[in-house]
């Protein structure tokens, strides 16, 4: 991965030992991160009895098919409605958020205007505001304007991500050479056109990164929908699974629903992170290095 190699020829036995110590420690921590995920996969294949026996890693009570059909049929298939809602909130919200962030980041990077750094300071302050402290006043505002318990109440707040603007500024600085913009301007393109057809194209990796992070944040969002929504039909997955979980104490047959539903809710993000490794690595690197 790097051209750098450690120490010269020193006592080889000690180095071998420390090599296995380093990799052993890493392997242990991987076991810690993967264990609950493996449990989730095996537990999702079990019926209530098999789950309650605590033998998650045996094949006792294997009944994945039944769990899936239960999931699809329970409450008129409300689970997959939640799934679609989550896709809508996360997909739509992240796309708009990424576009808004990229436009602002590009403007901060490429234009000189009065009070720019002060304004950017406000954006950075926005990063520090605890989101849950905003949820309650947001709820009250939304109820004043009649948006509570609508798609918009969950969608609008997630269109804003100050950290996305910060990242976009970093990306704009490293991906868009000023010469490319000059060339477009000389060819007579207007400023907005230049942004749209040159800046945005060159910043596509940045756009995808902000999109990916916001998608995850919205998919994982729990507090805001909890505050805003009461109609089950509007729930995203997180809130729906929470509601089901609250029934498990009285009615253990909910366990397989919650577990299998959780597994399906996790899959899209795992797939996204495995296949888009380049992008989230780039995003985290840009945030930390610059």
């Amino acid at each position, binding site marked *: 991965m790097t051209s750098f190699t*450690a120490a010269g020829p020193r006592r080889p036995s000690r180095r071998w030992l420390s090599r296995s110590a380093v990799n052993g420690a890493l392997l242990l921590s991987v076991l810690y*991160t993967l264990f609950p*995920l493996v449990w989730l996969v095996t537990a999702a294949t079990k019926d209530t009895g098999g789950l309650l026996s*605590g033998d998650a890693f045996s094949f006792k009570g294997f009944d994945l098919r039944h769990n899936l059909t239960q999931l699809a049929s329970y409450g008129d298939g409300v689970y997959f409605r939640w799934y679609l809602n989550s896709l809508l909130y996360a997909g739509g919200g992240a796309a708009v958020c990424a576009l808004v962030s990229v436009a602002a980041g590009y403007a901060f990077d490429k*234009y000189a205007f009065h009070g720019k750094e002060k304004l950017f300071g406000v954006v950075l302050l926005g990063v520090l505001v605890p989101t849950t402290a905003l949820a309650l006043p947001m709820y009250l505002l939304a109820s004043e304007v009649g948006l509570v318990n609508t798609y918009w109440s969950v969608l*609008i707040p997630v269109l804003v991500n100050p950290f996305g603007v910060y990242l976009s500024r970093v990306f704009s600085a490293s991906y868009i050479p000023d010469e490319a913009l000059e060339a477009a301007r000389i060819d007579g393109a207007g400023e907005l056109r230049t942004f749209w057809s040159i800046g945005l194209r060159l910043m596509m990796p940045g756009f995808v990164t902000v999109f990916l992070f916001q998608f995850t944040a919205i998919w994982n969002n729990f507090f805001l929908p909890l505050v805003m929504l009461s109609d089950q039909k509007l729930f995203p997955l*997180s809130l729906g699974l*929470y509601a089901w979980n609250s029934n498990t104490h009285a009615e253990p047959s909910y366990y397989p629903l919650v577990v299998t539903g959780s597994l399906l809710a*996790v899959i899209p993000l795992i797939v996204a992170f495995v296949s888009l490794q380049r992008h989230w690595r780039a995003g985290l*690197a840009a945030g930390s290095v610059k």
Partner: protein
Amino acid sequence: MRAAGTSVEAPTPTPASTPAPPLGTLPGPGRRRPPRGARGRTSAAAGVLLAPFFVLFTAVTVVPIGYALWLSLFTEKQSGLGFGGARSVFSGLDNYTAALGDQAFREGFWVLAGYCVVYIPLMVGGALALALLLDSALARARRFFQLALFLPHAVPGIIAALVWVYLYTPGLSPVVKAMDSGGIGFDFFSSGGTLPSVVNIALWEWLGYNMVIFYAALQAIDRSVLEAATMDGAGEWRLAFGIKLPLIRASLTMVALFTVIGSLQLFTEPLILNQGGSSTVTSTWTPNMYAYTAAFSRGDYGLAAASAVLLALAAALLSFVVTRLTHRKGATA
């Protein structure tokens, strides 16, 4: 609610962002744009590109902050005999004194303090240790380790909490079962067990994420610096603590800052623990839960707003302290 101004130094904007040269002054004979209004056009374009963000930012951040401050100054009073519903009465700082005077609220802050004391060093130290291990020349399969450690981040917090609470529940959990057969009885829901239980869930969710941030910063270190140090006889330990660590101070600040802000918002994990049958975790266990309960169980919006404002102030104060501490030696990267 707005964090103290000084705490913004952490993620400094890139120095590489050179502003575009003014448009009217393009060099080259015969290629000159008409100078009139060129500058005006530029800032108009900047305005159009910035507007969507700032309109939304105002609507979902600035206005709610102002509204919370406003609300926190009023109390709902039942008028007369209760006819005609409630009306808002200006009550000054009464909500703040009520929140601060409420033992449940103060205990929430103690819980939070205990949580921070355990969680933040474990998180920052653990992520740092893993990143240094991965960055040391001895590590293998780095891409695999990065991905595997990062994966919990792909799990929604609510699901992470659900899974772990199931793993804590006697009868459901292979962990508890294994521990029991090994003679270690540990009740994750007992008064002594709740805090470690919550810390563990949060640690699991964010350890890999922060590790990747540190690792990215470590990878960005100029390798020739490290090679020179190695030539001078520095071992892996010296390399890690004498050279690498001071060079990634900026990302250390960033991770510490986000960890602190995240910690103060503690809500989801204890809520699920509460649902999972822990009697220790009450509905006002953390300040955030207190605010939620005040608003949605008691309908006392003034009190809820005041406690949210106090929580945000605590976040601002702690962010300030963190930036100060991590920048103290002045050797910022």
